[in-house]
């Protein structure tokens, strides 16, 4: 009897121990009312995986479009082709330069610190030489660096943009022609950033912001063509680009004065009614409208661009005796022009989306959330340059992690609109800036 009880005890113990692992019941994602068989995405560098100021294999792999396509594959999406830069290539920027990495840089004062540096003196221009189009494997990612909404129907666009030229079916086809050649069943439109970027990156000098009427006509036409065959899709609004680190990293009042330089500056500028104090001060900028001398102190809320030559600032009186030129500054007026225009475009995008019953991902809210900062699975994310974790080293495009977070926003609205049950991706596994 005793023996029996002991063996029953031992036996039940063994049974229980093997049953100790919690059981996982996998759920299969469903496509709901969407059909991702042939998916295309159109946009600028933000859609195409452009990051660290270059198109690279790595960046393309982690493009918003590709991340989405990979998730679509779990609900019946087909192969998704991208015009890949060769894996062995370093990639190339829109200006022909090499990508940024974080490295050590010694400034004019012989101070060495971490800073974005180009990984080589020039980019791999060979990337732009070959045309990669094949009729049997048509591209799905039309996230083309520099592509503006206003250019999607331009049949001469291949001659304008080498990043399109390398992927187009013919040099007389527009981006839209190429895209319709895929006969898409589901599409994503993430256009508009490049349309405002010329203005923003030139400090308001390049005033080529499309009129709202032209923007509306172009967007409306695009959506009409895309939906003509019954395809469904998701469209993205335009983020407030002035929240990008490119415009927020250099502080307006970053001019730090000691007692001697304070005195010198005051003696020079006091007659013009500009006053300085020991410690932090606003930089001097050009502003033809300001006074007879066309200079003034930058105001709180105005933005200095990352294109400011920092060595000149540190060692050659730029921003001080030599005021920063207007192309380095977004004034309050320019900022408000830019923001009003983006807001107007976004109303157009949302209206057209509603008329065509499309899902809308509000990237402007996403960018705002980043600016305010949030925690993602224990990772503090923000819009800060380098340390914020979401923007790449060009300060404009997201890095892989930022793209993954944004792709999740697409997935959320797609699921909601089309009753699909796509899983999000774990953005924590996607890379950000690498540190030496």
């Amino acid at each position, binding site marked *: 009897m005793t023996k029996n009880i002991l063996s029953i005890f031992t036996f039940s113990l063994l049974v229980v121990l093997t*049953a100790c*692992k919690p059981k996982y019941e996998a759920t299969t994602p469903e496509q709901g009312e969407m059909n991702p068989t042939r998916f295309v995405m159109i946009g600028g560098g933000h859609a195409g995986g452009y990051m660290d100021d270059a198109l690279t294999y790595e960046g393309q792999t982690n493009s918003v479009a590709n991340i989405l396509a990979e998730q679509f594959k779990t609900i019946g999406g087909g192969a998704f082709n991208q015009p890949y830069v060769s894996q062995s290539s370093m990639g190339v920027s829109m200006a022909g330069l090499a990508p940024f990495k974080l490295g050590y840089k010694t400034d004019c004062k012989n101070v060495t610190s971490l800073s974005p540096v180009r990984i080589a003196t020039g980019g791999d221009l060979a990337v732009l030489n070959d045309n990669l189009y094949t009729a049997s494997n048509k591209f799905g990612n039309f996230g083309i660096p520099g592509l503006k909404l206003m250019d999607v129907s331009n049949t001469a666009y291949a001659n304008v943009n080498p990043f399109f030229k390398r992927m187009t079916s013919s040099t007389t086809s527009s981006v839209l022609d190429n895209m319709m050649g895929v006969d898409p069943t589901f599409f994503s439109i993430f256009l508009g950033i490049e349309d405002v970027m010329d203005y923003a990156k030139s400090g308001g000098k390049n005033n080529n912001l499309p009129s709202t009427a032209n923007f509306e006509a172009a967007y409306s036409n695009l959506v009409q063509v895309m939906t003509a065959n019954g395809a469904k899709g998701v469209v993205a609004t335009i983020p407030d680009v002035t929240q990008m680190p490119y415009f927020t990293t250099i502080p307006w009042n970053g001019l730090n004065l000691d007692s001697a330089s304070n005195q010198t500056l005051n003696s020079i500028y006091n007659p013009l009614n500009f006053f300085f104090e020991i410690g932090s001060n606003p930089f001097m900028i050009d502003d033809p409208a300001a006074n007879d001398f066309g200079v003034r102190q930058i105001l709180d809320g105005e933005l200095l661009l990352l294109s400011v030559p920092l060595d000149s600032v540190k060692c050659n*009186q730029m921003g001080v005796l030599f005021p920063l030129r207007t192309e380095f500054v977004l004034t309050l007026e320019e900022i408000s022009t830019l923001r009003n225009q983006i807001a107007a475009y976004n109303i157009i995008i949302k209206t057209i989306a509603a008329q065509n019953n499309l899902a809308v991902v509000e990237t402007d809210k996403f960018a705002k959330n980043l600016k305010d900062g949030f925690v993602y699975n224990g990772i503090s994310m923000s819009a800060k340059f380098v340390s914020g974790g979401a923007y790449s080293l060009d300060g404009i495009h997201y890095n892989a992690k930022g793209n993954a977070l944004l792709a999740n926003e697409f997935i959320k609205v797609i699921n909601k609109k089309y009753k699909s049950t796509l899983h999000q991706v774990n953005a924590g596994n996607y890379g950000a800036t690498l540190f030496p």
Partner: protein
Amino acid sequence: MYSMKQIYSFYLFLGLFLIPHFSYSQGFQVNFQGQKQQAMGCAGTALQTDGASLFFNPGASAFAKENSVNVATTPIFANVMYIDSATNDVYRTENPVGTPFSAYGLFQLKKDGKLKLGIAAYTPFGSTVQWEKNWIGRFAITRLELKAIFIQPTISYRISDKIGVGAGFVYSTGNVNLQKDIPVQFEDGTFAKAELAGKAQGFGYNLGVQINATEKLGIGLNFRSKVQMNLNDGKATFTVPEGLDPNFPDGKFVGSLPLPQVTTLGLSYKLNDKWAFVLDINHVAWKAYDTLAFDYEVNTTSLLDTKSARDYKNIVAFRAGASYKVMKNLEVRFGGGYGLTPVQDGYVTPETPDGNRAYGTFGLGYKLGEHFAIDASCYYTQITRADINKETNLSGTFTTKAIAAGIGFIYKW
């Protein structure tokens, strides 16, 4: 002549070091401190069993009839599964087997004397939580190892045939080792790491009263004080890219963790020679655990002191069990319990994926002659808890399965 403010400043917020905490949030309360009690639903405050009463109720120890020494260990097999609500990805712990032990010596100066002296040593938590590699919550925690031993010298006194009282002083010493990944990457893409380690100490006491109201009915009251575990000489080690070394200086830190006060009312009823029943009601003052703070000796823009809200609430747990004497030298025991979780919504963390829990236990005791006895027990529970953590935004469902199978040996004389 002019200097710029630092332009590229790297505010790499380290994030918050979550709790050095046990995987059994009610863990202090699981009562793995006596094989007989463990087999009877972890109840037995009102029943003098053996040396383990020094933990459960030093008042009951006053009714011991012999000298005794007993030792026991309870290997814990605990597995946690986490299903992330956004990705539906599943992650699991790879916990090594936990091996809490207890040892008791209970002595009387003369045969059937009123005064008993006892010494108890036990590990109220001794578990390690190890999450699988690259799990989604790696920036909250990857590994938490907690080892602590409580040493409790105790005096018990039998005031009358019906009333016994006892008091013990508790000294606790332990080791904490907490690891997590930091969301900055080396050039090869691997993530930086942080490790916090140190020794902690704390003091407390354990008071008990046992009233044997009738031959059959026993009433036990037990009060175990809060033990504030203070970590005064912790060492923080950061494995980060060279370029970030200045932001994450290795150095000292201090922190502390309260183990809550527990008040228990226990009842025991001896129906006849064969059957005995026990019931315990615990009140656990978890409210003491409102904040977890870490204070680093050297702060940088990336390494700030942290204060994390925990906001635990006081809880009640019910435990009951029975023993049945099958034959002269063999007793079988069984029981179960239900405990509310102290962890409120929004505060569930991967190291304490706690929820309300029901559990079942069984076991047996076997006497080998007059002096020697063996007790064995088994405890099983499954807990499921879904939550969105307010601090890390980890959003998902934790499922914990735990089995604790213990064995103990007693020598009496």
